[in-house]
């Protein structure tokens, strides 16, 4: 067992943990939290791979991931606040008008 592969597995773990959170949590804020955890997985993987190959691209990609994460947090929270004003609560399952 080598370092990179263990880290890749751990990053996969972070990813599926976040995924589980997205699937299982009904509170919108917690879904956003889970999304952040999902994105942390690739971040770790990129840095680890970059470190493994000694390539600077890994860190560069990490920065891109970070930018995305920031943008998503901003947009997600804005939508959350917006939804909250409409629906009155933070329950994801409650916003289900569009169906069928």
């Amino acid at each position, binding site marked *: 067992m080598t370092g990179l592969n263990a880290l890749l597995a751990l990053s996969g773990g972070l990813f599926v943990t976040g995924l589980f959170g997205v699937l299982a949590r009904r509170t919108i804020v917690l879904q956003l939290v889970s999304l952040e955890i999902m994105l942390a*997985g*690739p971040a770790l993987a*990129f840095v680890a791979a970059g470190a493994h190959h000694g390539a600077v*691209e890994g860190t560069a*990609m990490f920065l891109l991931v970070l930018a995305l994460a920031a943008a*998503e947090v901003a*947009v997600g929270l*804005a*939508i959350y606040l917006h939804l909250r004003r409409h629906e009155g609560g933070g329950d994801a399952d409650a*916003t289900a008008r569009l169906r069928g």
Partner: protein
Amino acid sequence: MSGAEFLSLAPLALTGLAGIAGMALAPVAPARAVRGVTAALVALALVVALSRAGAEPAAPYALMVDDGLARFGTVLALLAGLGVLAFARAEGGAREAPALVAVATAGAVALAGAAHAAVLFLGLEITTLAMIALAVLPRTAEAAEAGYKLFLMAGAGAAALLLGLAFGFADSGSLMLDAWAGGGPVAAVGAALVLAGLAFKFSLVPFHMWTPDLFSGAPASAAAMAGAVSKVAVGIALLRLTEAAPGGAAWPLGLALAGGAAAILGNLVALRQESLSRMLGYSTIAHSGYLALVLAAGGGLAGEALLVYLAAYVPAILAALCVAAALGPVTRDDLRGLVHRQPLAGAAMALALLSMAGLPPTAGFIGKVYLFSALAAAEAWALLGVAALGAALAFVYYLRFAVAAFASAEGAPGPTLGWPARAALVVALAALVGPGLYPEPLIALASAAALP
């Protein structure tokens, strides 16, 4: 940076600039001016892109390629973007819509030329994020819900894509897409993750769930982003990746499964839809499915078929969405007598539906010809059967709506279309009927572009 390289980047740059200009002008200028400036810049980008037809390929920094595929995709995405600009309305008092359309188009242009994981990822996310923003612009409950659904699934999809790219990078040490062929198990897992991310964006089953909600809840411009602009770009990206063949045989197999499921399920569920937008949403899933089938089958005709199909599909979905945007949320019954009340909108809607159903004399028929030919040439009989089954189901719902448009009914004339929308409809009509009657130019362009 040489002149050629600069020129090759110019369409992307100009489109991005259009977005920035739109954003900057939005708070201060009237909506019409914002749209005009944005559209002018995108049109300029289109002119530049067209002027580069036949030019020597230039490779700016190797992150992007400048081959026929990229150029074809760029032109098509820019055309689609212009079309969307023609009917993207200032929803809910927000004047940012043109800016967002331009930004999304820029993302699509980047994606069309993506040869590198970073550009692939960024192009994809720019269109997605702009799409989300477009979706929530009206600030209605439905729009917010559609936006949130898209947002959440986009987040998961983006994470999957990124993780996949990271695995690929870890396996090969390179971020160039064509360096990933023949990797080990890590690369295979990475490829699966990348495929999932792209399939989400391409709305293949079971990654498709956001699509119908977006079409019915969000404004038509957001739907057009998903159905036209980003579909072109993602299609081309998928074609590139399929040719690079990461993940070995699992890639085409997964593509075929997801595509087949999309072709069947999309058409099936569309059968019983009464809302025009929702029907279009499901049908766009089905069309993605056909394209995925073509890609999965591979063979010499796949690239050509993909491009021709996209070129036939984009004007159709844009025309339909343009009319839908003008009419607001309509059901099939509301469409009755449309041809009578608004001849241009009605004719465009009817022809667009015919084209999507693949009936002559529209470009859709040529697209269907290519779809079937490509599958037959690759001797992918099972996929051909699935595509045929899907196409068979599709006749029903398209024609149900088309006949409603033609049917006679009393009704108010409905809102009139502005001149940009009308102009866009005329162009779309020409793009629908022209290739249907004389397909040679389109076919020649597509086959030239599909050559490696």
